[in-house]
């Protein structure tokens, strides 16, 4: 068996194929990530964000500890303390103590 005589040589093509596959997938993963803003509610009660996206306003209720992705292409959001902020779609809104902070 040539494979037994050249163990290393037989392994490499599959390994290299896997490597290139992994590289491609990594590239895709890096390229495909970060496509929406997310909101985290760190409080123990439900908090509501008012999101203005496209032509309308929607209320986004976040249960305690919940994380939600929203607003892929930019939007306006009214935080629980009444502040109005604009989002481009890559930020993280963190709500704690009834106050929203953008990171």
């Amino acid at each position, binding site marked *: 068996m040539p494979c037994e005589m050249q163990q290393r*040589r037989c392994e*490499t*093509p*599959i390994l290299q194929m896997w490597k290139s596959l*992994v590289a491609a997938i990594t590239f*895709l993963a890096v390229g*495909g990530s970060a496509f929406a803003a997310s909101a985290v509610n760190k409080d123990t009660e439900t908090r509501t964000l008012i999101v203005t996206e496209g*032509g309308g*306003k929607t209320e986004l209720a976040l249960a305690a500890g919940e994380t939600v992705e929203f607003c892929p292409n930019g939007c306006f959001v009214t935080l629980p303390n009444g502040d109005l*902020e604009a989002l481009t779609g890559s930020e993280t809104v963190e709500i704690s103590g009834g106050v929203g902070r953008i990171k």
Partner: protein
Amino acid sequence: MFFRLLRLVLLLALVVSAPLSFGAAAQGLAQAPAGLVADQQKILQDLTTKTDNLEKKIQQDSEDDASLVDIRLQLEELSRNSLNSALAFRPRLAEINARLDQLGAPPAAGQPPEPDIVTAERQALASEKAEINAVIATAQNLSIRVSGLIDRIGNMRSELFRNLLTKRYVLSDALSPEVVSDAHEEFTGFYKAVSSWLIFAFKFKFQAVLAATLMALVLAAVLLVGGRRLFGRVFEADPGVEDPSYLSRLSVAFWSTLLPTLAVGAFLVSTVFFFNYYNVLRGDIGVFLNALVAVIAVVFCVNRLTNAALEPQLPNWRLIPVETGPARWLVRLTTAMAVVIGVNNFLSVVNDKMGSPLSVTIARSFVATIVVGVILILMGLLKPFKASDGTWRPWPTWLRYTSVALGLFTIAAALLGYIGLAIFVSLQVVVTGTILVTAYIGFLSARAIGEEGGFADTSIGRWLSANSSYDETALDQLGLVVGVAINLMIVLVFLPLILLMWGFQPGDIQAWGYKLATGLTIGSVTISVTGILTGVVVFIIGYFLTRWFQGWLDGSVMARGKVDTGVRNSIRLAVGYAGVAVAALVGVSAAGIDLSNLALVAGALSLGIGFGLQNVVSNFVSGLILLAERPFKVGDWIVAGDTTGTVKKISVRATEIETFQRQSVILPNSNLINNAVGNWTHRNKLGRVDIKVGVAYGSDVKRVHALLLEIARSHPLVLKNPEPFVLFANFGAAALDFEIRVFLADVLNGNVVQNDIRFAILDIFSSEHIEIPSTPRAVVETKKHEAWPIDDDKIEAEFAERELAEAEAAVEKKRLAKSGRKARKPDPD
């Protein structure tokens, strides 16, 4: 006393300095960019004005689809701008919020009042915040308004499209003799415009025209010649080849369509570009030229594609196995169809610009659609295949009927006056048909590459097999991957292309893609394709990281650190399992699956799992203990129950043992933990071998002992320490038994040493005349029955004699019993 004073002073100093430091910080912060609010207000004012203008324009251009698309793009830009202007406040807002946090809430009723400066600052910040919020709210309202306008444009466009398809023209009006005069008028106007431009160009811009054309020609030539040089071998069909492979036919078709089309496209585009650059174009000529260029490019592409697929000259290279005559006809018909549609489009641009009457437009479209319909029917009725008996056979039924039905539909729509619908259908047939055919050729090539040995035949495959270590199987697998990738690419490229052709907006497709990617919600469960893909990808990455780390740790660190093989193996396995477990956990959380939900289910199921998987779990835990305790390692000679052999692999559930007969025995780990396991090679491979030998009674045992010891000592594999020992074991039934006990450095050599020593004993005993007795086999004689007696008197006499003997024996036995002697039990061995 002194300390108390000091404390008082310190306290006072603190109280005084606290508001001071607050004030200092507040002064630093108060210098906000004062113009920020005003600036953004002005920008928003501008944006609002622009929006007003665009809204008016929407009203004006409500019939013009292209203009509406343009307005939509501008509105989207406005929306982005308003968002950006709101974004400009973010750093300032963050500052204000941080400062407000520092200041804290205003003191409640019972508490001591705070310094005035703090109250004033809080109020100033709050009012600035309110101001900013108001500006952002303006931006928000603008954005909502713009979105509303964009939606309105979408509705208007779909309404326009519906009108186009359903609007009916009265043909008798349009096709009156007046049309001829109208058309003549229009043609005269067009001729005048073009000729006046030509005269202008030749008189004043002759050099520029010449230079522009030359440059464009050079560019196209470079592209064509360069392409030929690069892809020369795959570019042209070689008539000498008897039976070219399907893949080479496909690649020839692909490249011979792509390269000339690119060259022609480059020539046309650069011509227009250079004409623009030198200001040769004037008035509407630029629009006409653009339309003409598009027509030429499309007709050329369609012609090349059909030629490449059907190859009327070279039957060997044909992709679709039609006969030569029909192939020629198909190329002609397809090209004619493209020409008709292209000319119709060009004329529609001319009509638009010349402001010609509706009747001309209708007449032109009518003729074009009727021609396309007729061509479609002709194509459908063509009999392109030849049966084995020489008769001509038509297309497959579905293709034939589709083609004829489309043709009839177009003609009927045109005759009934639905010119818009007819034009739409015929345009779709040409463009969508071209896209579909190209996609189909792509699919076929993907299939050909994916076939066994297909990839190795391609130029890339040949190059890879020559320049890398890929063997045939790896190439085959690579071909499969490439095939799948091509299929995926075709779907990704052509599906949106067709959707776009059918009037969907890029935004729609993007929104669908986004929805599919971020999650389809079914009940309370959200399935997200990207989430799952991310999870899988993260797991794969984690897995390979673990593998790499494992290899690195084993091969580089521990191998050079001269770590014991058993420990190395244990650490490698433990790292591997831990890594995979971590990768799985991270992957699961990356996929967005909430593990806390799973915990509930796991809690409920754990009892059942505990019972059901008892054995597996016990083996698993035993495996972990084996890894930690290391009672044996890979390569050890162990005895576990009935199994004796070499350990090949220790996994977490079971251990693989290879017996000396080369049978693989998979032993569950719990067996190895719960039962005794003998290991011949645990700490070292030292072991004892015993060899028995017997000598005849009467031999000189001292001499025998000395000889045996000599034999044992003289063997090279026998250890000097512990010394070999000869045991005078027993006075046997037939011989005096001796036993040679020797220790070996490697007990695995036992059989060899035993052989050598036995041979040596035989040799030396025979030369020394010492006999090794062999127990003689017992001779068993079978007794034959005596013949049946005939003499009765004699039998009676013998019977009486036997009775007497028995009575005497009984008397004797009684006498012995009375004397109290007992038969003793034999000693244990």
